[in-house]
């Protein structure tokens, strides 16, 4: 309802304007268009006529001057005048036709040029259309270019991230490697230090042993020397002189009861507190001799009756140091055996065994 009314009113004012414009053009334009066009043509023509008549006037003036200069007979003059006017008229006629022709040509020209202009206009429009197309294409391409650029940037960023990660890992790796190297060095150093310490310990032990050994030897030598110094009443046939010497000694001590205790068992019980190892060695020497010889004879010699028997077990065991004994077979690892120090050092990194050549036993003599 409302829209219908609106439509009608719209039609009304619009139609009113259209009608008014048409009416205006009828009154103001169409009524005058033709008249003004024609007027302008006439004006042009009259201008042309004016130019021509002016020229005619000058010609006439010239003629009159001539006439004034040469007054001849009336008839001939009028004839000549007539002729001349005729000639002028012909000339002007020709000129007029020529001008008309020229005008026609110019009009033709105008038409041609107008056609050309229209063509050019068309060209311009088509060019504009083309330009718009190209413009659009350019915009599209620019958009594409932008997209590509953004994706490139993204890729570059991703690449950068990866690179950073790689660098970080590289740094971590080198740090760890460094640490490993250092740890290995430490380890080696510790091992060598430990080895050195152990070696020192071994040295010390060896030295102690040697010292001990030397001391014992020295004592032994001294005792031997002492023993050698004493002049012994040697009975060439009997070799129980040691015992007899001892027996001689015993009375010197002033106790005859001691003679009873000169049995090996008594000796045994007496020896350890008395003089340690060397003493016992020396005593052993003595006893061996007594063993080797017949103690019974001694006993008999001494005249003391006691229980006598042949020693059934070795009473002393000595550790000897043979110059070189390979332990490789026993340990299953390469072993360097130091002959001088009698210390063997296993060269395996995991286990280093230091051992004294205690495995080899032998009796001294």
């Amino acid at each position: 309802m409302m829209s219908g009314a609106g439509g009608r009113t719209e039609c009304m004012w619009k139609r009113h304007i259209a009608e008014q414009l048409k009416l205006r053009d009828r009154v103001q334009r169409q009524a005058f268009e033709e008249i003004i066009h024609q007027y302008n043509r006439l004006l042009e023509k009259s201008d042309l006529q004016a130019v021509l008549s002016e020229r005619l006037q000058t010609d006439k003036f010239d003629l009159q001057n001539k006439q004034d200069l040469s007054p001849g007979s009336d008839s001939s003059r009028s004839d000549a005048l007539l002729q001349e006017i005729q000639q002028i008229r012909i000339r002007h006629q020709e000129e007029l036709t020529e001008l008309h022709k020229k005008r026609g040509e110019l009009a033709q020209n105008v038409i041609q040029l107008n056609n050309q202009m229209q063509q050019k206009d068309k060209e311009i429009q088509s060019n504009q259309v083309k330009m718009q197309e190209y413009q659009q294409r350019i915009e599209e391409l620019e958009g594409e270019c932008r997209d590509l650029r953004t994706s490139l940037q993204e890729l570059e960023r991703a690449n950068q991230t990866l690179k950073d990660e790689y660098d970080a890992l590289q740094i971590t790796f080198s740090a760890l490697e460094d640490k490993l190297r250092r740890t290995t060095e430490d380890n080696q150093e510790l091992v060598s230090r430990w080895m050195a310490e152990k070696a020192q310990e071994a040295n010390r032990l060896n030295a102690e042993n040697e010292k001990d050994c030397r001391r014992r030897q020295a004592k032994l030598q001294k005792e031997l020397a002492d023993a050698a110094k004493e002049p012994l009443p040697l009975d060439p046939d009997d070799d129980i002189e040691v015992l007899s010497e001892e027996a001689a000694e015993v009375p010197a001590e002033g106790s005859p009861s001691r003679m009873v205790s000169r049995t090996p068992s008594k000796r045994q019980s007496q020896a350890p507190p008395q003089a340690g190892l060397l003493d016992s060695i020396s005593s052993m020497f003595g006893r061996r001799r007594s063993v080797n010889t017949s103690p019974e004879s001694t006993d008999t010699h001494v005249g003391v009756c006691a229980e006598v028997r042949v020693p059934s077990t070795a009473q002393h065991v000595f550790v000897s140091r043979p110059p070189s004994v390979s332990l490789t077979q026993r340990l299953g690892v390469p072993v360097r055996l130091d002959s001088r120090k009698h210390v063997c050092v296993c060269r395996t990194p995991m286990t280093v065994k230091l051992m004294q050549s205690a495995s080899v036993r032998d009796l001294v003599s």
Partner: protein
Amino acid sequence: MADDKDVLRDVWFGRIPTCFTLHQDEVTEREAEPFYLLLPRVSYLTLVTDKVKKHFQKVMKPDDVEEMWFEYEGTALKWHYPIGLLYDLHASNTALPWSIFVHFKNFPLQDLLHCPSNSVIEAHFMSCIKEADALKHKGAVVNEMQKKDHKQLWMGLQNDKFDQFWAMNRKLMEYPIEERGFRYIPFRIYQPTSDRPFIQKLFRPVSPDGHVHTLGDLLKEMLPAAIPKDNEKKKYQVVIHGIEPMLETPIQWLSEHLSHPDNFLHISIIPAQCD
């Protein structure tokens, strides 16, 4: 829409038959014939009167020729107003053809602007278009146009090429649909007897409550006297392009279709005829 296009054409091709006569004060060597011409309503006087100048210079001594100007019944005609407006404002309801006196001396400096060349007209025309677009779109459209687009507008007017002009002018007439019109309507209201050259204020095509403004609304706000009161005889005519549109006509439609090429709606308020 076909009707609208016809209206645009009729507006563009409006003509006024004019008779140019050399003023009697001018000194001539011989009698000067009057010169008749159909003047385009939307153009400017100095742009279409080369022939008039040539015609009258033929009968004058070159020394006497200064800048040409035009006069109608004692009023110097401002060349920077469109011809249609000059006619509607000064010579409506007179007999055609419009009779204009041509002067070559005594240029009325206080009334007229000098117009030494067509580039001056072009500058004025373009400044009008920019002003109108500033009102309509805050100048966005005209600023977006390239130099050649501006040139196309001007060449269209100068060479009377309707299609060339409107191919570009169409853009100036666009507006966002949701706004239902331009920001402000570029209009000027002229009166023949007034101290002010014209009335120009900000006026929106649609009222805040969504009501479409009409030509009547515009006049009610700008010049209430122009609207006839009830039971009273019409005192003024409201003329645009030589016609009187109905007061119910929406002002937005008028601005789009009845504006001059300079994008302004030039409205003449002239006293109604007594008869």
